[in-house]
């Protein structure tokens, strides 16, 4: 049915309202990030900057080396911003490693859930459904105590292990039903031709499951990149911070102004927003599969 007349106008208006709501924070962040502190101070009521500039990004991405016009006289720049390249590298290394590790581990387990179906494996699957509900803070307090005792605080590996464990259950929940939906006859044919079960997984199940693997991989990358609480508790030295931890470290800093903060926020959100828009279909499928199927 094609909506007509004023209903059509109403639907357009509703869409515009939703789009405005979704984009408002991004517009605000751009507005703040593209001008100087002085310009934000000079006009506290307008929606148009006196002059637009990319200097905030310049000073952040160069770690304070390139000051640009608006920071010429500035004497203060938080130490953590000067070490932003650590945060960028750490965030990338952690998110990529967690994505790869969870994909491998979850695929192996999902195969055993989909094809072997022994009692303890189904039990493991059941635990996974519940594991998603454990609040991270409950896990982080004991992990902090343990990591501290074994000298694993302030390490990239500690965060990778914790995030991998935290995101694995989600992947098993997404991948197992997908693997199970691949016809068993394909396995049987390959097995008659002499393939081992492991080869069947590598040569048949995984290639046929690329959409599900892409869904899960994209979701894991986004969650790993965005996660704050785990690296916040485990890593407090600037060399081991991720981007979200670095952003959190600036929250209480009254001398750091919104123009710099907004620029850092945009740098932190760009990779995941672009990834999600590029892999939109996969992310949509993964999110609904992870919620409904158990």
């Amino acid at each position, binding site marked *: 049915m094609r909506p007509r007349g004023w209903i059509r106008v109403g639907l357009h208006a509703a869409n515009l309202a939703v789009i405005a709501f979704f984009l408002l924070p991004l517009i605000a962040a751009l507005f703040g990030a593209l001008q100087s502190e002085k310009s934000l101070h000079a006009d506290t009521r307008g929606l148009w900057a006196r002059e637009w500039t990319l200097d905030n990004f310049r000073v952040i991405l160069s770690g304070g080396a390139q000051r640009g016009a608006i920071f010429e006289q500035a004497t203060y720049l938080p130490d953590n911003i000067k070490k932003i390249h650590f945060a960028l590298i750490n965030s990338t290394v952690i998110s990529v490693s967690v994505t790869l590790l969870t994909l491998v581990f979850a695929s192996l387990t999902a195969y055993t859930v989909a094809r072997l179906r022994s009692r303890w494996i189904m039990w493991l699957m059941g635990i996974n459904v519940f594991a998603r509900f454990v609040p991270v803070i409950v896990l982080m307090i004991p992990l902090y105590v343990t990591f501290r005792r074994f000298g694993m605080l302030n390490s990239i590996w500690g965060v990778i292990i914790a995030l991998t464990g935290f995101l694995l259950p989600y992947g098993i929940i997404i991948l197992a039903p997908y693997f199970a939906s691949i016809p068993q006859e394909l396995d049987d044919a390959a097995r008659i031709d002499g393939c081992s079960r492991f080869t069947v997984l590598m040569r048949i199940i995984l290639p046929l499951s690329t959409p599900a693997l892409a869904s899960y991989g994209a979701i894991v990358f986004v969650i790993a990149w965005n996660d704050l*609480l785990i690296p916040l508790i485990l890593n407090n030295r600037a060399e081991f911070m991720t981007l979200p931890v670095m952003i959190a470290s600036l929250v209480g800093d009254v001398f750091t102004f919104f123009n710099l903060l907004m620029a850092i926020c945009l740098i932190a959100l760009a990779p995941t927003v672009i990834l999600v828009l590029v892999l939109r279909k996969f992310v949509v499928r993964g999110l609904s599969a992870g919620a409904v199927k158990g």
Partner: protein
Amino acid sequence: MARSEPFRFGRERSPRVLGFVMNIPTLITLSLVLAYPIFYAAYLSFHKVSLAELRRGVYPFVGLANYERIFSDPLFRLSLKNTLIFTGFSVTVEIVLAIAIALLIDQQHIWTSRVTKFLILVPYAVPPIANGLIWSFMYSFEYGFLNRILYTTGISHTAVNWSGDPSTALIAVSIPYIWRTLPFAILLSHAALQGISQDFYEAASVDGAGALQRFWHITLPLLRPIIVVILVLRTSFAFAVFDEVLAITQGGPGDATWVASWYSYKKGFAPPFDIGAGAASAYVLAMIIGLLAISYGRLIYRRIQ
């Protein structure tokens, strides 16, 4: 391995052995990061653990003292109350908005609906801490984006103290949270919406049912299962809200936005580093969410049946 045949892993192994071997990585990771911490958190919650004990590595047993202390702490009770208000508000708003927006993006003949559909995932990808910080710029009393909008459009000429007023601060924190988590609820509602057969609507139209009647008697009842799923999932995640509180209010103004996760974090990782009490309060939170998880499990189980 001299032959050119592909490497065969466990060909002669029984499914039983293979099932175990293939699960070794998962079992190790999950026991390290999930199973062990859950039990160790319980252990810590019955012991005195603060900086001095951490240094010595000895945690004296104190029985229920940590629990007694947090339950007699007015701030803990306030945090639970705030968490309930926060969760109740955000989940209710989210479900209503999600169904409305799902219906909106289902309109294939409206081109703006396609734009909305394209943009829906954007908030989902934004790091929660960045989201919080951006909103704290929007809320800022002196320089904030929202007040600038009020001035420029002429709606108001006095600045609004969005997140600084104790009576509205909790709502101010929940709006960014709703913004970020709404895409998930919309996607689930939209997927369920597409599963409804057009035949129902056509039959209803033939019987003379209007749009509102069709929504009330067909769409809503058929969406009920997914609404319950969203309700349970969103409730249990909203109970653990942390990032937006840290970025926007840090629990303030006063203690108006102390929520459960923030309480556990502050107890354990801010002076005087009372990790025992932090673990105890986190365990109370986990128990509440655990009850929700059990109801979710039942629900899913019934769907599979």
